[in-house]
Structure formats: structure tokens, C-alpha cells
């Protein structure tokens, strides 16, 4: 059986697939790959069946040892030291060393056959908020590689842009609790330049900036929230919900990031400037 062994895990490396959609009514978050387009591309480049599990690493740092010959593809944030957006053969005994990415935050390593850990509630995704699925990767851990593959697609290179390094613009639409904020509050949301907080994780991207004016006080009864919800806690600064967000939340959602811009949220780095565009 094919396998790879983790030599160094870096800041955070987890196993991710398409997640656990359809179980939110039981309080089970969707989870899954944060940058879904990058994850899907990595799987396709190695001819994996849809939904195969890959490795998501945050800010590089991963070192893995190929125990057997493997075919891999690496997508997302471009790490130094590894090939990008192309299928590559790794010989038995070779190491893949992921240096820090030049831009972006999250990189995907797909292995032909998929990472074959046991699924939990229908998914191999690590959910950091709920503690479901496999724990984050640790050094010396050996990961079995499965055999669920399609024919190789015969693509040498996928021409996709790297995540941008400068200001990122995210289009937003008003959310269900837009009316909890004054017009000045909305204007402040879409006119200021925010900075990504280092407090961000797979649950959400926290933005630092001027707090928003609310038009009403009081508490919101908890309600369901989807990926991309921009929640405004009492601090007045936004949190954009990512893959591991809770199923429900108790703070008003002023806006949602539009679907095509959601994957870009997963690549935001601490300190990066962000504009929310109406």
C-alpha cells in the first residue's frame, strides 16, 4: 500500500475533503477545504475521484517523505521548494519540503489515490471547531494513500493565478441583519480598508478596523449561518465565516461575501489589506 510520512507538520496541516454538508440540523458544521477551488484542482490534476481527501497546509512548513512512489499535485498558495499546479511524480524515499508561500496562506497537496484515513460522519475533514475528523497532522505520522482514482487527465500544467499579495477586494451583499446597522455603519463597512487579524483561522477571518454603528441594541436569538456570513460581534469589527464556522451564531450578520469571492477569503494573510465592495 502507498503511504507518506510526515517529517515536519509546519504551523498547521490538516486533512480536508468536501466536508460534511447536509448535517447542519444536527449541529454538525460543514467544514471541508477552505479554498475549495484550489482543493478541487489539486484532486483533478492527479485524477482522483471527486471528494478524495487531500492535505491543507497553512503557511507552508510541511515536510513529507514518500514511502512509495507517488503522484502528487500542489495548488493554492505557492510554497517555495515544490512544483505548483502540475502533476508530479515523487520517487520512493524523496522528500517534499514546503517553504513559506510567496503570497496567500493555504496550500493543497493532493496525492493520486487520496489520503485514506477513516471517514467520520461521511467525511475525512478535520473540523477544528467541533473536534470532528482526524487530528491535525503531527511529525512521524504515516498517512495511507488510497486507490480510488480515475484515469490521469493528461494535463501538464493548470494556468491559475497565484493568490494576490496586495489589497484584496471582496464583493459583498446585504445580509439578513443589515437593518441592525445604521446607514453610516453600512457605509463604514464598504468604505474602509480593513486589515486581516492574526486571530484568523479556519473558523473565520477576523478583520481589524473602525467599529460599525448599530441602529439597535439587544441580543439576537441564535440563527443559522452559511459560509461567507459577515458577523459583527459587540467589538463592531467583522468576522467572515469560513469552513469550520459553527452552524448557528448569535451576532447579527450584516452582509455575505459573494460565492465567487469566498475562496479568496481562505487565502488572506494576517496584516493583508481588505476592502469589502458593495
Amino acid at each position: 500500500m502507498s503511504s507518506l510520512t510526515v517529517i515536519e507538520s509546519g504551523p498547521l496541516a490538516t486533512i480536508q475533503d468536501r466536508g460534511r454538508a447536509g448535517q447542519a440540523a444536527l449541529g454538525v458544521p460543514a467544514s471541508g477545504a477552505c479554498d475549495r477551488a484550489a482543493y478541487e484542482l489539486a484532486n483533478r490534476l492527479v485524477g482522483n475521484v471527486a471528494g478524495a481527501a487531500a492535505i491543507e497546509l497553512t503557511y507552508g512548513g510541511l515536510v513529507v517523505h514518500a514511502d512509495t512512489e507517488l503522484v502528487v499535485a500542489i495548488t493554492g498558495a505557492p510554497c517555495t521548494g515544490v512544483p505548483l499546479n502540475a502533476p508530479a511524480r515523487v520517487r520512493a524515499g524523496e522528500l517534499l519540503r514546503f517553504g513559506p508561500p510567496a503570497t496567500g496562506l493555504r496550500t493543497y497537496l493532493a496525492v493520486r489515490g487520496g489520503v485514506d484515513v477513516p471517514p467520520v460522519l461521511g467525511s475525512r475533514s478535520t473540523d477544528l471547531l467541533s473536534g470532528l475528523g482526524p487530528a491535525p497532522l503531527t511529525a512521524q505520522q504515516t498517512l495511507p494513500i488510497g486507490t480510488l482514482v480515475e484515469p490521469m487527465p493528461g494535463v501538464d500544467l493548470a494556468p491559475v493565478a497565484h493568490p494576490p499579495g496586495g489589497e484584496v477586494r471582496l464583493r459583498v451583499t446585504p445580509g439578513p441583519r443589515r437593518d441592525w446597522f445604521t446607514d453610516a455603519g453600512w457605509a463604514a463597512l464598504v468604505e474602509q480598508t480593513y486589515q486581516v487579524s492574526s486571530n484568523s483561522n479556519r473558523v473565520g477571518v477576523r478583520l481589524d478596523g473602525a467599529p460599525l454603528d448599530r441602529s439597535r441594541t439587544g441580543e439576537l436569538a441564535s440563527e443559522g449561518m452559511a459560509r461567507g456570513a459577515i458577523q459583527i460581534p459587540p467589538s463592531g469589527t467583522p468576522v467572515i465565516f469560513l469552513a469550520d464556522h459553527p452552524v448557528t451564531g448569535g451576532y447579527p450578520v450584516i452582509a455575505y461575501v459573494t460565492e465567487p469571492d469566498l475562496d479568496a477569503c481562505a487565502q488572506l494573510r494576517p496584516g493583508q489589506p481588505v476592502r469589502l465592495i458593495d
Partner: protein
Amino acid sequence: MRLLPAGDRAVLVELGNLDEVLGYYAALTADPPAEVIDIVPAAHTVLVTTSGPLGALSQALRAVTPAGTTQVAGDLIEIPVTYDGADLDDVARLLGCSVSEVVARHTGDEWTVAFCGFSPGFGYLTSAGTWNLPRRESPRTKVPVGAVALAGEFSGVYPRESPGGWQLIGRTTVRIFDQDREPAALFHPGRRVRFVDAGRG
């Protein structure tokens, strides 16, 4: 009923109260619109996410006739509880009754899982009884697994060790959520629950 925007993949249905939510949720889950991925009931709302167009979903959501009854016959589960929670005396004081009366009321009511959230398998249970308890002023950083608790009109059981601000009245050894079990979650919206006094352990 109001439909509120919730991004490109979801619509938030706002209803008047929890009873309306339960009736609407029951009708919607009995006959879900095509391409619906998730239906998340909460205290006043139901969030519906879809892989299809939002217009068609909104149309389908407006056409739902809420179910008259939300209870599933025969689907009653008994949860044995040891009533020795750290906040039991406070709860009795807040309700202006004795500890044994709190236990009698909690075991006497029939509870229904209104919705889930907070963490996998955590159910918000309501009853016909009038419960209205504040959360603790400062939440605990660690509530043990199986803790039986009260807050607002709700009762709940912590599925795993987690932070929490509810008033703890007891504990159960029943596994509320077990990721290796099918189904993993014991509580699902609409399920009826009765708490049984297991005696002081």
C-alpha cells in the same frame, strides 16, 4: 413570515416564534425543495441552503404550509439524570422553589428538541412548562460531558466537554453524540425527550 437574504446559497426564513419554526421546519423537511443541502432551524428562523438558484428556492419557501403538529409519534427517548449539578441550588433560588421541586418539574415535563447548534449534537429542548432562567453571569471554561443544563426556556445536555454558560442541574451517562455511532446525534429536531431521576449518585 419574512424571507431574508443570506448570501448566494441560502435564504433565512424568519418566523414569529419557536412554535412557528417547528411547524415550518416539520413541513419543509417532510417535502424539501429540490437541490436543498441543509435546513437549520433556530429560535425564530430557519436557514435553508441550496445548490440551485435562489429564486426557485424562495418561491418554494413561500409556498410551504406549516405543519399543525411537530411531534413524531413514538419517538420518545428517556435520559436518566443524576441531579447534583453545581448550579442546582441557584436554579431553585431563581425559580423560588426547592431543589426537589426543580427535579420534579424537569422530570415531569415532556421536552422536544426544537433545534440543534452550538456544537455537534447539542439540542435546544423546549417544554410546555414555563422555564425562564438567565445564563450564568460568567460562563464556565469547562463544562463536563453529559452535563444537563438550563438557560432561557431551554434545557440541554452537553455532548462533550466544552465552555458553556448554562446553569448546570445534573449529569447523564447517556452518550448524546458519538461520531462512531449511527446515528451519531441522539437529538434531532422534533424528537421528544423525557428526563428521569436516576437518584443521587
